[in-house]
């Protein structure tokens, strides 16, 4: 991971939180807002270092809570836990498969919503809960499942166009050069 990649991720977290607050399309159409941060954390955990996961989780969580009625820090722990859990197991995950990305996004969306709720209740807050909360969690989870492969494709495209390409190994080997001439 280089600095440009990390900056892309932090900027994306900033814009994702703003978009979620400025354009509540999910809430109008489905009755529940789709969280954009869990897909971003899944992508970060699969493509970046652990420090990157920590930075994106802390930055995204603080920004999210600053625009929400959540107590500051409520969203930070769920994002961090989700990101670290995926990072630790990422060697076992077929991260280039769309199905794997969708499953991870779904789990991350659901985990983010559930852990946030648990923290809120633990802190003594009284959020609006009811049977509809199950629907809201289902929407968040499904949204995460749909958006994670899209996030993956978007960052792949961005990386391809804006970052330097990897230096590939040349096929030339001096020890196998045919020497022409005498002796």
């Amino acid at each position, binding site marked *: 991971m280089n600095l440009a990649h990390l900056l892309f991720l932090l900027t994306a977290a*900033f814009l994702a939180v*703003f978009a979620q607050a400025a*354009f*509540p399309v999910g809430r109008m159409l489905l009755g529940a807002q789709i969280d954009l941060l869990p897909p971003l954390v899944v992508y970060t955990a699969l493509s970046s270092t652990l420090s990157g996961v920590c930075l994106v*989780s802390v930055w995204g969580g603080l920004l999210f*809570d600053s625009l929400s009625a959540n107590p500051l*820090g409520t969203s930070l722990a769920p994002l961090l836990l989700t990101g670290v859990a995926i990072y630790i197991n990422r060697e076992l995950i077929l991260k280039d498969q769309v199905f794997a990305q969708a499953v991870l996004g779904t789990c991350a969306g659901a985990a983010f919503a559930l852990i946030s*709720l648990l923290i809120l209740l633990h802190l003594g807050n009284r959020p609006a809960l*009811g049977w509809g909360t199950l629907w809201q969690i289902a929407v968040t989870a499904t949204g995460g499942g749909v958006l994670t492969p899209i996030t993956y494709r978007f960052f792949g495209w961005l990386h391809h166009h804006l970052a330097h390409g990897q230096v590939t190994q040349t096929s030339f080997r001096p020890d196998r050069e045919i020497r022409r001439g005498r002796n």
Partner: protein
Amino acid sequence: MLKRPHYIALGLAALLTLLVLNLPARATARLKLAIGGLFVPLFGLASSTQQLPASASDLLISRRELLRQNESLRRENQQLKLQSARAVNVERENARLRQIVGWQQQKGWKMKLGSVILREPANWWRTVQIDLGQREGISNNLPVLTTDGFLVGRTASVSLTRCQVVLVGDPNCRVSARVENESRDTGVIGSAGPLESELVELGYLSRNALLKPGQEVVTSGLGGIFPKDIPIGKIVDSHQVEFGFQTLARVRLAANLNALEEVWVLLSN
């Protein structure tokens, strides 16, 4: 497996999380406003994007339609001017009579118009952010109304240029309300559920409350935040709760909280 630098990064992040969660409420509020201030450059973008469909539809209105609307507004304006003049006279008369009888003078209110710039990103709360802040004289716990005069909520978390409005139906916005019936039953407005944004519950009503669907619900003036007689909504249905000791009613809000664009904030004189 994780290496040593990984443990350090993880430990720092966990420590920061615990620190932020355990900060005193005042420090948290300040930190929240400071971090939220990072979005200020984007607020203009949000409001102009939200106005884009309206401006696009404005371009399609014909001149004839505009002239018709202009004429209709002119007539309405004349009628409102007359009503306003009568209201001023009635207010003066009311004040004079109160002085004669020795009643306490009613508190006057100034109004500030604000635009909704952001909505709650989390699913469990009902709040919006408006573009009025300390600079415009806004403070915590001021009543907020729609442009039609229906109750929206109260202000909270006020920064220099914006403030949060906690909407009616949010668990943190409880309103003392009165039903406009013969017995003038009073109760407290609370949340009805996470998905029903247009409905709220009116609880703590007497078990003998004479409720009928369609009855008006207004603020009672108790509680110190909301002045009395602000329309909240209409009764939908009611049933007995707490082993028949209390009545709980569902109220359909008069304000469409999903389509808020501009709101009035009431400032006391």
